[in-house]
């Protein structure tokens, strides 16, 4: 019974028009943010993504105000510009004052978001109902994805991956040992800027699907989960992308089973569950095996103690 139900939902991906695009869009987001999230996690900039996604909001408002259309590409452009700007402001605050990164992130995040809300409510007060579609960027509305959106998202994601593949080695060095990179003559500053830009694109994709607030989980959780299994960066990227894509598909399928359940939060819960499983069951580092190993060691140790004192050869003979 249960299996049948699951199967029919699964089949829905191929038959149900809406679900197909929702799942596809979420999967694209999951794959992109999963891969790129690895860098933010490894660079200890996990919450950077959070600040970027919040900072994108006024961009959407302004793009709509200027262009007057809800064309998703234009709105995305506005969002990207502001997310980028937010990132620069954060970096500028940390580099020119004694304010630490966390506070700088908090400043950018809340002020830009406030500005975004001001724009959205301003649009509301002058434009009436037509701005309704803009609200969906807060929580994302994967369910509203249509073919055109998905194609746009796909193109953006493909762009990200092209950059990622071309600059993989450079990103790797900039992430793990930027001073070494600098000594080799890599322009680490520009590389960081490029990496930030690619993450901005991922964030913009995410705004459509999971929304401003939950985007950060899509960046961090797959990467953190993948990190539990694998230590090589390349494989970690791949696994993280798989985790992200998987949670996108599973999340959108689960949310399609219940009426009115929003997709974004379900995807986030799915990916957190994957992370939980990874934390517990990963063979190298998981809690479970760590526990078993410790017990074994303990037993071994207690076995060996009499051996050492009893049967060991006396020294010097």
């Amino acid at each position, binding site marked *: 019974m249960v299996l049948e139900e699951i199967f029919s939902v699964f089949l829905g991906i191929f038959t149900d028009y809406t679900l197909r695009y929702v799942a596809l869009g979420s999967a694209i987001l999951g794959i992109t943010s999963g891969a790129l999230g690895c860098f933010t*996690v490894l660079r200890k900039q*996990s919450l950077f993504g959070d600040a970027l996604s919040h900072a994108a909001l006024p961009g959407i408002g302004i793009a709509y105000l200027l262009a007057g259309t809800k064309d998703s590409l234009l709105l995305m452009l506005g969002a990207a510009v502001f997310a980028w700007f937010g990132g620069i402001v954060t970096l500028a605050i940390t580099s020119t004052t004694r304010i630490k990164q966390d506070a700088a992130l908090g400043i950018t995040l809340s002020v830009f978001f406030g500005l975004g809300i001001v724009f959205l*409510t301003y649009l509301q007060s002058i434009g009436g109902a037509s701005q309704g579609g803009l609200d969906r960027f807060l929580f994302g509305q994967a369910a509203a994805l249509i073919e055109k959106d998905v194609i746009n998202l796909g193109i953006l994601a493909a762009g990200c991956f092209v950059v990622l593949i071309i600059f993989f080695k450079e990103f790797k060095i900039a992430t793990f040992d930027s001073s070494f990179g600098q000594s080799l003559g890599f322009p680490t500053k520009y590389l960081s800027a490029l990496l930030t830009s690619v993450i901005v694109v991922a964030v913009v994709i995410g705004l459509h699907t999971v929304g401003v607030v939950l985007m950060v989980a899509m960046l961090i959780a797959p990467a953190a989960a993948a990190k539990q299994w694998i230590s090589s960066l390349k494989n970690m990227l791949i696994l993280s992308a798989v985790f992200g894509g998987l949670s996108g598909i599973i999340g959108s399928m689960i949310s399609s089973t219940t009426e009115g359940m929003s997709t974004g939060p379900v995807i986030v819960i799915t990916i*957190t569950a994957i992370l939980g499983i990874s934390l517990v069951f990963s063979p190298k580092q998981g809690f479970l095996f760590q526990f078993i190993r410790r017990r074994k060691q303990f037993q071994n140790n207690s076995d060996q103690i009499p051996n050492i004192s009893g049967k060991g050869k006396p020294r010097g003979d």
Partner: protein
Amino acid sequence: MLVAANCASIGAFLVLRQMAMMSDAISHSVLLGIVIAVFTVGGRETVPVIVGGVLAGILTVSLVELLYRTGKLKQDSSIGIVFPFLFAIGVILVTQAGNVHIDAQHVLYGSIEFVPFDTLYLDEINIGSKSLWVLGSLAIANISFIAILYKELKISTFDASLAVSVGLMPVLIHYLLMIMVATTAVVAFESVGAILVIAFFIVPAAGAYLLTDKLSKMILLSVSFGIISAVSGYLFAILVDVSIAGSMATMAGAVFGLIWVFAPNRGLISRWRRISKQRFDLDVVILLTHMQDEFKLHRKIDSSSIANDLGWTIEYSNKVCDFALNKKFVEMGDQGDLNLTNSGQEKIHHYTA
């Protein structure tokens, strides 16, 4: 205003303890606590809602610490995982709830329609009856919290190991502070919403941090910045008919921006001045050492040859030379050439020694 004052006073500690993003996490996940409280009690009474929110806040902090302590995740990653997770659960509960009509969007920008424990409209900052009382008592609680534990907070913030050694239990203080953050976040929820609470927690405190080195002054400044941005934000919002919370946060950002640019010692302008002054000072010394070297080779020097040798523009070289002449580091010779004076020698010595 009260919200602003409440948040700003505690925010000072958050900024100093580098836990700014923790307030972000807490303010998001109190949603879960509030929603669950509303469900279990079925009503919208103030007390259970606050208790629920605070419990959720503590849950967040403990989960983050738990993940972080295992050593598998960095602190920022664990924050970034825990709060979206709890928030996601909260949002799902909200959207699935048939009986309580709560619009998820209002969680974020704190529209009063969402607020489960007040029925006033958004103007409650001015006319509020019940919420005013709640906020007022919270303000008293916060002030007494800081006043009573001021010394303890101060020591544990700046030197945790000292706090341990004199028996102050920084862990306990840490959790007390987190409880106050959660309480403030829950109460502030109704007027400014989840994300904009952060604006009041962090932004005024960060601004104050740029202006002073003393903790007590920083708290006072932070509170006044909070109030200024609240009042101006409110007026702006009324004027152009936009979200009050949003414009308050924007104003807080504007206040911070002004401080950032104009702060007497740490502002961008004074920083830029200092740097350019240092650079100029260094260039003077470069000029003097250059002259010293050239004299050893018995060459004559004037401002155009300096410009040529050091790669400066003629104007800049003239400027540096004039400055050096004024300070009597160099003196003009008979044919318009420049000679090093004793005080010029000393200046070089002072720099190179």
